[in-house]
């Protein structure tokens, strides 16, 4: 990345924070959609069955733990690539 001076860094920080928020919203709504689609299948009833609700809670846990682990490995891989001098795409 080209070096940014102090003013540019402040502006980039603002853009970065907005993007982080937008990304979090997307991850959050995608999580709701995924766990809804995996766990809720009974439309003979108006409200969630307890098995559906349990499934949703475990689904959320599983997704969050998996995403943490992937993030960890992703960061390790990126660090390894930068150290070896090979950044994908550059």
């Amino acid at each position: 990345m080209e070096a940014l001076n102090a003013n540019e860094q402040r502006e980039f920080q603002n853009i970065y924070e907005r993007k982080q928020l937008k990304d979090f919203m997307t991850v959050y709504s995608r999580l709701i959609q995924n766990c809804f689609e995996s766990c809720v299948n009974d439309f003979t009833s108006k409200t969630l069955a307890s098995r559906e609700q349990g499934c949703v809670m475990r689904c959320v846990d599983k997704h969050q733990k998996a995403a943490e682990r992937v993030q960890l490995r992703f960061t390790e891989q990126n660090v390894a690539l930068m150290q070896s001098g090979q950044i994908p795409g550059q």
Partner: protein
Amino acid sequence: MSFLPGFGRRQPSSAEKIANAEAEMDMIGEMMARLNQSCLKKCIQPDYHEGDLTKGESVCLDRCVGKFFEVQMKISEKMQGDAAMKQGM
């Protein structure tokens, strides 16, 4: 939403207030689009024998929306609970 940038620390600027309103609008729009996608997938068979909704499809859609909101609320409560635990409150 109380974690939006600028809120609570000082008076948010015009640009920030508009950006926050935009972010809230985007969130509602995104949730609506995913809800629509999921409930169409769950309730509408892709054979399209007719253009009108059958009675079964209509009832399914109604219940699907209700259950989607319930799921959204339970997940929201869970995540707020998890965040509270992490902060030791």
